[in-house]
């Protein structure tokens, strides 16, 4: 994915306090911080926060971590998509007015697209606005004399965070968020997780004695009545979770490894899983498989209308007639990869000057890792390019022991030097040899330091044929955007390797995946021959261990059958046509599965993919329009917290603790693990050390000589 999930949180410290001054508009714009990642979450909190938590600042400067009094969760599972609504209630158990932050640790691959806060009478809503609008709102607040600050942050979105201000003694705050998650799939097994762990220990920053939340947990009621503010609200609370599985007919048994649940048939083709008891300190986990995991299959899910109902009624009415759907293609689960025979692997490595130093070492390791996966029936070749191409062999040769041995030596001898001319290397890698059988896989290892990007994309599209291009980015600041696009043009994937430690893991992941393609040339059409509006427009290949989700949109009531087809057995030249049909007309249409959001996100990705220097303004406009319509965070829109309560005076001044250290040392980096370039040479140190050594040596030499002279 690209950076669609970045947010521009808008923060004003005292929007609430200013209430009650002059205006009575329903929309007192501006308040708070909505951060999909919270710049002000420090490292320890990151480790310790394992469920939704309210962190409040006590008047003495210490912090109180408060667990929810009640948690209500509703999930809608459609294939790999899990749409989740969470509502958590917290209570201010102290006798003070408190300010704080709500933090929710998002599961992997999840993005928040909606939120609402209820604090007593006040109601604060997350609204998607263009960045310009968000900024204007902020300026307006400033002009009205409100204390405001705008924070621009791009952070890996591991945490959802929002500020909670002016929580009265004994008052409750109800936080609800919507997020959408892509579920994990491993070896035929789907799983979902909802965080319910309790942090083991929390040392308050002011050096107060440790507050042991586990014991506070056991003494739940007591803790709640304890007004010291130290453990306010640290009770287990009630937990109510319900998950609805759509298209349950295709699913096998649903298992809950940690908690007791009931599974009951819901409406039509769905199953409802309800949590019976909430054992403390265990995440809520569900696991399931396909009912018939032995063969490839296509499953579809439909939804009518949008997840976030547009405020504009005419748009809403139009949308009544639109349906969103997802087709999930699931690879079969086979113990041994029977097709893993006789593939052709072409490894291309960039040895231009820009790859010097650590980059070339990593690239060599990556190459060696790829060579180890070859079996004797496979064929391979290695191309090294700078301003000219050096090939290991004229054409691909069998991966015999002898040939591999020579290949390792070839790789060892590679040094980085010279310019970058990528086109000849790409051409040679994609050039089809005469005795061609099945799929050629090209792994392209580079830092992407090229100038003529557009020309290269074209070259890839024109010469791809039956080959597949997988790009591997190396170094501290590779040109990821180019490589992602190149891989997409080449029907492959992009892998980023940020450090030497990641080489083995990331390369193994990539090689395992591409070792077993299940289906190529995937196509989607209606029975009458027309093609639905679907994303991604260029369907990728289906690999073992990785289902594909295709997002589509159609007019409501369309009852045509959808036909999904592809070729199996791509690697061993025993190509077979595979086809299945899905009756969309008889599909159950769920209301709130979030399929429209996936559709919009995929379309944004497609727009970004086709973006060039000239159509940039148009693409920006299109992405902005999509984001506003579907209520999504994008590079051009933000989720902004807006107070929608009518104004009224607030009598008590609330205390806001000092903002704490923004950037903890040793922050573990973004999701990509990308770091900034290294920009120190150590030459001053070398000069100084050299000078000292020379002086030491000279004086030693002098002393020795003098002694000898004295002796003489």
């Amino acid at each position: 994915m690209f950076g669609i999930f970045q947010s521009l949180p808008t923060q004003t410290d005292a929007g609430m306090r200013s209430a009650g001054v002059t205006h009575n508009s329903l929309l007192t714009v501006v308040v708070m911080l909505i951060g999909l990642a919270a710049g002000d979450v420090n490292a320890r909190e990151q480790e310790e926060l394992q469920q939704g938590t309210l962190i409040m600042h006590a008047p003495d400067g210490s912090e109180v971590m408060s667990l929810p009094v009640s948690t209500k969760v509703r999930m809608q599972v459609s294939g790999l998509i899990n749409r989740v609504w969470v509502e958590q209630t917290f209570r201010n158990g102290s006798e003070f007015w408190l300010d704080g932050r709500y933090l929710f640790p998002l599961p992997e691959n999840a993005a928040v697209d909606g939120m609402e806060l209820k604090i007593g009478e006040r109601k604060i809503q997350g609204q998607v606005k263009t960045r310009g609008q968000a900024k204007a709102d902020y300026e307006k607040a400033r002009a009205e004399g409100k204390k405001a600050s705008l924070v621009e942050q791009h952070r890996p979105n591991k945490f959802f965070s929002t500020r909670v201000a002016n929580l009265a003694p004994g008052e409750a705050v109800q936080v609800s968020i919507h997020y959408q998650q892509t579920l994990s799939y491993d070896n035929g097994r789907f799983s979902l997780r909802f965080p319910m762990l309790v942090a083991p220990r929390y040392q308050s920053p002011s050096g107060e004695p440790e507050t042991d939340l586990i014991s506070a947990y056991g003494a739940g009621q007591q803790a709640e009545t304890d007004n010291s503010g130290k453990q306010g609200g640290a009770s287990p609370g009630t937990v109510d979770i319900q998950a609805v599985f759509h298209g349950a007919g295709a699913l096998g048994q649903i298992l809950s490894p940690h908690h007791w649940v009931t599974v009951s048939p819901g409406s039509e083709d769905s199953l409802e899983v309800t949590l019976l008891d909430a054992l403390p300190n265990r995440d809520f986990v569900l696991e399931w498989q396909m009912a018939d995991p032995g063969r490839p299959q296509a499953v579809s899910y439909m939804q009518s209308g949008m997840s976030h109902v547009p405020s504009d009624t005419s748009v809403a009415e139009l949308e009544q007639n639109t349906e969103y759907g997802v087709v999930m293609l699931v690879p079969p689960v086979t113990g041994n990869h029977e097709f893993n025979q006789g593939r052709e692997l072409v490894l291309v490595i960039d040895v231009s000057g820009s790859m010097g130093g650590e980059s070339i070492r990593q690239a060599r390791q990556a190459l060696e890792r790829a060579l180890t996966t070859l079996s004797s029936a496979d064929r391979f070749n290695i191309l090294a390019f700078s301003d000219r191409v050096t090939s290991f062999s004229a054409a691909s040769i069998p991966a015999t022991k002898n040939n591999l041995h020579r290949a390792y030596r070839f790789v060892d001898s590679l040094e980085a030097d010279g310019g970058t001319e990528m086109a000849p290397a790409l051409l040679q890698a994609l050039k089809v040899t005469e005795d061609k059988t099945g799929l050629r896989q090209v792994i392209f290892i580079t830092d992407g330091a090229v100038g003529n990007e557009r020309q290269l994309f074209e070259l890839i599209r024109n010469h791809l044929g039956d080959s597949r291009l997988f790009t591997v980015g190396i170094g501290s600041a590779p040109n990821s955007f180019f490589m992602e696009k190149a891989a997409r043009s080449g029907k492959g994937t992009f892998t980023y390797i940020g450090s030497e430690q990641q080489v083995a893991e990331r390369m193994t992941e990539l090689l395992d995946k591409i070792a077993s393609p299940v289906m190529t040339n995937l196509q989607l059409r209606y029975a009458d021959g027309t093609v639905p509006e679907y994303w991604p427009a260029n369907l990728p290949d289906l690999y073992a261990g990785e289902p594909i989700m295709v997002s589509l949109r159609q007019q409501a009531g369309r009852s045509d059958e959808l036909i999904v087809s592809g070729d199996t057995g791509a690697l061993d030249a025993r190509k077979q046509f595979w086809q299945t049909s899905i009756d969309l007309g008889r599909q159950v249409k769920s209301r709130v599965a979030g399929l429209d959001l996936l559709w919009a996100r995929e379309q944004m990705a497609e727009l970004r993919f086709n973006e060039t220097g000239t159509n940039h303004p148009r693409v920006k406009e299109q992405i902005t329009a999509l984001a506003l319509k579907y209520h999504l965070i994008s590079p051009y829109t933000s989720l902004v917290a807006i107070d929608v309560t009518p104004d009224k005076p607030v009598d008590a001044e609330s205390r806001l603790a000092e903002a704490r250290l923004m950037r903890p040392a040793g922050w573990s980096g973004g999701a990509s693990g990308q770091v900034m370039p290294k920009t120190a040479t150590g030459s001053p140190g070398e000069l100084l050390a050299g000078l000292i050594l020379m002086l030491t040596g000279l004086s030693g030499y002098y002393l020795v000589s003098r002694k000898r002279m004295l002796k003489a």
Partner: protein
Amino acid sequence: MKSVKLLAIAVILGGLALFIKGGYMQAKAHFAQFLVANAWQKTLEQGGEHKPWSWADTWPVARLFLHSEHKSSASLQHNDKGAKSLYVLAGAVGRTLAFGPGMLLSGAKPGEAGNTVIAGHRDTHFASLQYLKPGQVLSMQIPSGETIEYQVFDAGVYHESDAWLMEDTDRSILTLITCYPFDALFANTPYRYVVRASLRQTIEKS
């Protein structure tokens, strides 16, 4: 006695080697800029990419002026005596950075909407970054001959993993990155000193 003498000589030679290595880094940093200057002149005259020496893997993409004090735009000319000028090379990898500050190829081109990211060594070219303060003006000459002005809005220390600083932005900004602390003797540090500036105006070719 003889062995002590030999040891002394070895220490002298070792020291000399280190001194030369360190000096070579510094010399490369200073003298490369002259060769790059010629290539830049060619770029201005003929357009296109010109490598400073035939086996180079990089080429100048801009000329950056770090002004010594706050200047009004009228006085911002290339012959401004108070300005320190640096030729910016394509690509921000170790090999390029030894010769001059490098512009991230994945970032926006100067003047276009987006984030233009330039990294430079703290102990050679970008040592003077530490004196830049918010409000100060930077300017940059681009291949078309135009000069673009930026105004610093943020300067501070970040952790190396704060890669969001290099992400694309909506408006046109310039991000200068160098290692921190400035006066450290050796190379490894997880901290970066980052100066961010936003676009002010473009001045026509004079």
